[in-house]
């Protein structure tokens, strides 16, 4: 077990899968130089050469579509989008083509395709470089959607994505690349999709969070513990497929749920989770399900405005207190 960065875990996952399977191929903007903008492909060009990893022109429609062309002809492409925001230049290739071809062809065409995207706030990147699209991707039938929070999850889930025979949108978070964590060295270490991680046990309320929202969720649980409130923290890790059972089980125990996500509020995946929780655990709920999300606004640039928009531990604590009908305390 080594303590490595999230970006390194992603790099290692790709390197191991490229060694394991000569049909794995990496392309994206600047991936051949300095590991790309976020360092996730560092040293891969030296080991694998230009027939296995290539920098593309800034042509998202062409290279996202080319990923599909590779996948349906027997290769296993990993395509990197420098910023998730750029997927909007390739929505036809992703939504009309990649997501649907297996269904439209009655299963004749298979798409082993990993689309790595970098998303999220935290660096003052403004409205076109800090979005979170996992809710949007999850709404499209035919796409699997992964949102890893830790280096170990990033590695284990990325390896699963590369080995999967379906299109997987692998949503990395820009603020997590430099975070470190223990990661198994075993080249066969993988994490299955659709298995939530129980990060902290508790009995009074369930906090559900993914990716960059996991850290503030855990911090909120710490703060609540000091108030004598025991919060459980669960990370679904994959939005599609969703480990609905794990969420329902937890809420059956705690009777309260707070969903945290950085993606916008309206029609965000939290609404879907809340619907499923109330549908299956209605009689266990002691309060309405709460959400803590970014507002229904484009991400502003100024540091203080960005900070005000993004969920933090204090807002999560308040939401949990609300489910306990204690939100008026101390105010």
């Amino acid at each position, binding site marked *: 077990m080594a303590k490595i960065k999230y970006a390194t875990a992603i790099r290692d996952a790709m390197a191991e899968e490229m060694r394991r399977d000569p049909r794995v191929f990496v392309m994206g903007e600047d991936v051949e130089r300095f590991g790309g903008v976020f360092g996730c492909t560092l040293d891969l060009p030296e080991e694998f050469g230009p027939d296995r990893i290539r920098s593309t022109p800034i042509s998202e429609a062409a290279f996202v579509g080319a990923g599909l*062309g590779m996948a349906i002809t027997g290769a296993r492409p990993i395509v990197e989008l420098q910023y998730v925001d750029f997927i909007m230049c390739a929505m036809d290739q992703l939504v009309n083509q990649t997501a649907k071809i297996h269904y439209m062809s009655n299963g004749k065409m298979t798409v082993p395709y990993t689309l790595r995207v970098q998303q999220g706030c935290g660096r003052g990147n403004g409205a076109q470089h800090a979005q979170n699209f996992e809710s949007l991707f999850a709404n499209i039938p035919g796409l699997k959607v992964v949102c890893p929070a830790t280096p170990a999850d990033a590695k284990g889930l990325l390896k699963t994505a590369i080995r999967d025979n379906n299109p997987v949108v692998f949503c990395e978070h820009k603020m997590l690349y430099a975070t470190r964590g223990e990661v198994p060295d075993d080249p066969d270490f993988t994490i299955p999709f659709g298995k939530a991680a129980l990060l902290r046990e508790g009995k009074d309320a369930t906090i559900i969070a993914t990716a960059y929202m996991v850290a503030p969720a855990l911090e909120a649980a710490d703060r609540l513990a000091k108030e004598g409130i025991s919060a459980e923290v669960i990370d679904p890790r994959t939005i599609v497929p969703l480990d609905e059972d794990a969420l329902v089980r937890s809420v059956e125990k705690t009777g309260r749920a707070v969903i945290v996500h950085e993606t916008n509020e309206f029609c965000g995946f939290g609404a879907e989770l809340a619907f499923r929780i109330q549908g299956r655990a209605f009689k266990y709920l002691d309060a309405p399900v709460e959400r803590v999300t970014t507002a229904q606004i484009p991400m502003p640039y100024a540091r203080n405005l960005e900070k005000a928009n993004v969920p933090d531990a204090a807002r999560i604590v308040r939401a949990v207190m609300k489910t306990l009908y204690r939100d008026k305390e101390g105010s």
Partner: protein
Amino acid sequence: MTHQELLEIYERMVLSRRFEEKAEELYAQGRVTGSLHPYIGQEAVACAALLRRKPGDLFTSTHRGLGHCIAGGMDVRGMMAELFGKATGISGGKGGSMHLFDPQNGNLGTNGIVAGGTSIACGAAITLKLIDRTDNVVFTFFGEGASNEGVTHESMNLASVWKLPVIFVCENNQYQVFTSAMESCSVQDISQRASAYSMPGETVDGNDVLALDAAFRKAVGRARQGEGPSLIEAKTYRWLGHWPGDVFAYGGYRSTEEVERWKKACPIVRLSRHLLEAGTMTREMMDSIHARVDAQVEEAVRFAEDSPEPDVGVLMQHVFSEVQNG
């Protein structure tokens, strides 16, 4: 081209024509629904391009793709059944005319989105060149309308920079739905656009099988040698409307004189005349080709009619592949 090849192309063109004439008829009767975009009048392009393939060569098609599918060897019974929305259809009734796939014959699919195939073709070419290391090539068909789509330009640039074995086949049938090429394209000849991507561009008479063959031969040879992509513009004409409901195609946005002039330049009649004059084909041979094709189309309709509808139980199937990768 050998006599055998010419006769094969001729037969395939006639099959394409008859199949689509039948499909149009069935559409008018309400037995085929949805979007049906006829290729009638353009048959020479697909047949000249695709009968030159060797095993392992691939192609992407378009919304106007029935002709490409037939030229590519797709089973016409399965095609007709798909138009009927039957379980025995090429896509099990889930696709329709714009979503036909036949990877065994190198067909990576027709496509409901204009220019949808161009980037897919680039990816297929990357697999062939870098992963499989073959000298196979990929044809990507698109119209002059699609030549105005951004992804077509991105794909031509990518194919050129990476020297991908792609043959960009622009079928200039003169109209994007109701709007003419003159009104929508910045160039007289779409092939001029090749120069922006440092690849050879050639405009050919899209109704002349022999001229097309010469152009494809060059482009394919170049691609097989690892010299990269080419753009071939085949000037041709869509005889019918954009879809069966397009009642403006004759005397509306196109003059009846123009349509009739192009019909006189029919690629099938032209090839038959050439074959008859050259003695490659006798009248008797021609008649037997036509009879064979008619029987094939009738059989396809019978097969489609006799086939069951898809079981509603398949509705949720094939959203994801359940097959595990070892």
